[in-house]
């Protein structure tokens, strides 16, 4: 009964919200958004600071922001600061998971599931492939869909595979910590380089050459940052997985 009432209540609320949005003269209907009225137009045209005119893939050089993937341009360049925050969120939640689940002596949870030899060898092979894919996705973040976060998650899932395929396996936490720390620090340091080393520079400024849009080696610091993000995310999520898969040794 209570559930039903609650269901009716949220149904009514949903209906109200939809009606209100439909009646809202300022809110665009689905599929009719006018991008040119929004700041995004500047991201598409790369015209936040200058007016580059038409952009042609593979030809136009030295845009204010180099990635061919406009989303990446926003995530890792225009609004890179958000991404720093986002990495921090993941960082702190991995710290938190370690704090909540961690302990000094930890051992693997017994999964009632013991992989055989084939599985172990096979997954080792697969591990490499997934890892490579992850790195690839992270590196090509400025050109293709994907980027640091899915890439990092793929790296972590290759670790996960090892965990599942081998019930004795444990990651070297120390190594991951190092990776996580170094990647994070480098991200901030790259940001600070823009601020401190270049006169009149800004935090997280893209101080490298943007190159030709569409090339692998283009977009200045964006690929570097994305790889760092990938490594950091990968190591953080691996840490989280490790914490979830272990328990306090009794």
């Amino acid at each position, binding site marked *: 009964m*209570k*559930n039903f009432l*609650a*269901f009716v*209540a*949220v*149904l009514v*609320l*949903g209906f109200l*919200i*939809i009606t209100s*949005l439909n009646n809202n003269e300022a809110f*665009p209907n*689905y*599929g*009719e*958004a006018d*991008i040119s009225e*929004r*700041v*995004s137009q500047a*991201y*598409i*045209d790369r015209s936040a600071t200058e007016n580059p005119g*038409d*952009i*042609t*893939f*593979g030809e136009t050089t030295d845009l204010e922001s180099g990635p*061919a*993937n*406009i*989303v990446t*341009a*926003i*995530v890792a360049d225009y609004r890179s600061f*958000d*991404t720093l*925050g*986002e990495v921090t*969120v*993941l960082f*702190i*939640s*991995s710290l*938190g*998971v370690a704090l*909540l*689940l961690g302990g000094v002596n930890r051992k693997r949870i017994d999964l009632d599931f013991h992989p055989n030899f084939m599985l172990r060898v096979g997954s080792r092979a697969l591990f490499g492939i997934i890892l490579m894919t992850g790195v690839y996705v992270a590196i090509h973040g400025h*050109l*293709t*869909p994907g*980027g640091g*976060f899915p890439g990092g998650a793929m790296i972590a899932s290759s670790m996960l595979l090892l965990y599942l395929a081998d019930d004795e396996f444990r990651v070297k936490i120390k190594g991951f910590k190092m990776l996580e720390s170094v990647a994070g620090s480098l991200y901030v340091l790259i940001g600070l380089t823009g601020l401190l080393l270049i006169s009149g520079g800004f935090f997280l400024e893209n101080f490298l050459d943007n190159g030709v*849009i*569409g090339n692998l080696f283009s977009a200045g610091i964006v690929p570097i940052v994305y790889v760092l993000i990938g490594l950091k*995310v990968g190591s953080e999520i691996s840490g*989280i997985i490790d*914490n*979830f898969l272990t328990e306090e040794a009794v």
Partner: protein
Amino acid sequence: MLQYAAIAMLMLGLYGLLTQRNVIKIIVSLNIFEIGLNLFIISVGYVDDGIAPILTSNFNNNGLIFVDPLPSALVLTAIVIGVGTTALALALANNIYQKYGTFEIDEMGEE
């Protein structure tokens, strides 16, 4: 349509939070809410007949209609933040289970 579905999912998430008293179920509801939110954010930037906001070979950006890339960027951030919170919530759920031996809030007694 997907926009309405997104709003409906937001509401279902709220419904879950409103009725469920199981820690895991609450986290599931929260996740549903977040997925709904992400869908809604993307739907706000959708343009009929628009193309994905990626410049690819053979294209000149002139005259093309892209969907709004900014919501995508925001959702990327939101998804990762969501994962962070979910991981933390699950770790807490684990702690709760170790302390009370159950996931049902009603069985834990008032503190």
